[in-house]
């Protein structure tokens, strides 16, 4: 036992010496190399460059190399930009239910922009009737881009995520198709590409734009994106600009301004929802939606169902 201990102590001592010598040698080598590099460029010619995120930096001239632009980088750039969002913005939508008369131009514009089949809805105009005695009304339902999004919480691979500007997006290059987000969303805002998407050949050569979610991919999720690609260009979303009845307002909560898609009239967001008793749907679920509704009061038209039987269906209450 005693002998054993001695030999161990001995070993540790030797190990210490070896490690110590090694460390000194390494440090010396690093210093010599550093010194050499410094002497190589005595004038210290520095070049000013701009980084991708806009910072002004300096690098030694001989370190400069030509940046390469490949197709791969293009996709990564679009995805990185799309994942980050637009700094300083906080997008919000207001839907005036008193004006919606089920024109469905929003649905058509949306399906056209996002490569969707007729039965696939990023935005869906629902016939609602809250109770038996209350009046029915039409309710366009996009994704509510919740600030406490149940879909983002459950995603196992970060394929759906919340951006700094409030938009909840989908990366269909990442999505594994588990559909947990569909189970998680209480507003049924999400759809799945059960088959090859519409016109798949036509979009085959297109670069994937995460902010448009086109081209769509079989076996992945899609949903309303608040037209993030249009937001980037300072335009209104596809559905908002397509509405003929002035139902939609869209804008930035930070600036407290929303613009009506039909009349292009700008309003104070806070004032609009205060004066008109704006509300969000099922706020008791704690999801904190970014889409506000103005109640369906003072409508100047009758509720006309698409066809008479549909008006009689009970499914206007709940599914």
């Amino acid at each position, binding site marked *: 036992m005693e002998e054993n201990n001695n030999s161990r102590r001995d070993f540790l001592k030797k190990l210490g010496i070896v490690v110590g010598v090694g460390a000194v040698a390494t440090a010396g080598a690093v210093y010599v190399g550093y010194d050499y590099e410094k002497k190589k460029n005595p004038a210290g010619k520095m070049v000013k460059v701009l980084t991708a995120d806009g910072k002004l930096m300096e690098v030694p001239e001989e370190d400069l190399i030509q940046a390469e632009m490949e197709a791969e980088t293009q996709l990564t750039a679009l995805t990185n930009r799309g994942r980050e969002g637009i700094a300083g913005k906080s997008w919000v939508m207001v839907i005036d239910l008193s004006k919606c008369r089920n024109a469905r131009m929003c649905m058509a514009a949306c399906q056209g922009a996002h490569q969707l089949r007729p039965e696939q809805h990023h935005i869906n105009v629902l*016939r609602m009737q809250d109770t038996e005695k209350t009046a029915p009304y039409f309710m366009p339902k996009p994704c509510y881009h919740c600030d406490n999004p149940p879909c983002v919480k459950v995603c196992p691979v970060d394929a759906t995520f919340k951006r700094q500007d409030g938009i909840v997006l989908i990366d269909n290059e990442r999505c594994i198709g588990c559909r947990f987000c569909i189970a998680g969303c209480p507003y049924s805002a999400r759809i799945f590409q059960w088959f090859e998407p519409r016109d798949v050949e036509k979009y085959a050569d297109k670069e994937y734009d995460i902010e448009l979610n086109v081209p769509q991919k079989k076996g992945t999720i899609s949903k309303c994106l608040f037209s993030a690609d249009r937001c980037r260009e300072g335009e209104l979303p596809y559905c908002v600009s397509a509405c003929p009845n002035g139902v939609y307002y869209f804008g930035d909560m930070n600036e407290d301004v929303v613009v009506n898609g039909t009349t292009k009239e700008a309003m104070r967001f806070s004032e609009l929802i205060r004066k008109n008793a704006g509300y969000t749907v099922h706020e008791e679920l704690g999801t904190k939606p970014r889409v506000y509704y103005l109640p369906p009061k003072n409508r100047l038209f009758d509720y006309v169902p698409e066809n008479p039987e549909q008006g009689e269906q009970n*499914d206007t209450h709940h599914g």
Partner: protein
Amino acid sequence: MNQTLNQEDSKNTLRKIEDDLIRPLRNHKGFELWILFLLLMFIIGGYAYIIQLKDGLGVTGLRDYVSWGLYISNFVFFVAASLIGMLISSVLGLLKIKWITPISRIAEMIALAFAMWAGLVIIIDMGRPDRFPYVLLHARLQSPILWDVTVVTTYVAISTLLLVLPLIPDASILKRRMTDAPKWQQFIYTMVSSGWIASPEQYAIIRKSMRILAILIVPVALAIHTVTSWLFASTLRPGWDTTIFGPYFVTGAFVAGVAAVIIGMYFFRVNYRLANYITDFHFNRMGQLLVLVSLVYFYFNINEFLVPAYKMKTMDVHHLHGLFAGKHAVMFWSVQLFGLIIPLILLIFRPFRKPLPIMVISIFVIIGAWLKRYLIVVPAQEHTFLPIQNVPENFMVYQPTAVEIMLTLLPIAGVLLIITIIAKLFPVIPIWEIAHEKGVDESILK
């Protein structure tokens, strides 16, 4: 039981046990036919999967509203059935209950086969199975799916050890006895026996390891089914948004698992002619166990359905109405009556705990358990907060397709195949543990 036999008696007793338990491994009557049948199910299921890969998940009855169906029900059932390994070998074993010795391996085989396939069933349900590695490469700690993947793989690992460790002494015996077996089979025995020489140290190691594993597996097993229940309970949907899902699932799992083990016991007792080892006494005990777990599960059912039914919250009404009197009513009441309440009452009476009647009852219980998973998974998705409109009829009603049903059968065949292979390579009853109970000298168990 605990008296030690002398050398001569030891040898004879061991010889008898070995003969009884090894005989079925040589008898291949009907075996090829059974394997052929399972392979046929594999081919059919594989064909269905190719269709699904080619055309997309749209070949199933799933659509945007009911987007989890047979595959996920199957997954929940598989996880449930796999829990039995923990109950039998671990909980009862730690309580020093002796009668489980001849059935512990059957329970472990069932547990491992179901747990292994549970992971694969999930891949069948994925829209992009090619991206399965993303679950680890881009893992997000917040998602219950990551928790599930973690605990299921851990459970498979521990269950494998719990099955393999007690195989070591048996493999050593098989190495000695099965000298006429093919080379590969002898190689397996040599590998598994891991240099077993029946020394007291080896016995100490193997017993201690099994004890540690038996303790470790309890929290892991509870975790796999609790986390599986959270896949549903972590959402806001009426019917899933409930706090008792964890224990509700776990107790339901015990019911399914006990029934599965009883069916397995009956099968091996008859086909492997093991009536002297898996006796009426064991069926009687398992019957009592089934009564106990069924009572607990019944209690959770009362809580799960009567409490919301008393309050009748708007959203719960649609869900409960569908189950109690609507389109799922026939299935719901059949499952509750024939899968839980009637078996529970019958099994209170001793004659029904005889092998044949209890096996028949267990078949009802296990079919009921499978359908119960379906009733948990599917109806809750049909009742959304906002109405389902402007979509074709097949988006509103979930109707499983032929492709989907064929592909659902594949993992079931897979489970049976794993059990079949293990039960053909190794004795379904641990020779060394039985011999030890009969007082055979431990040092000759090699």
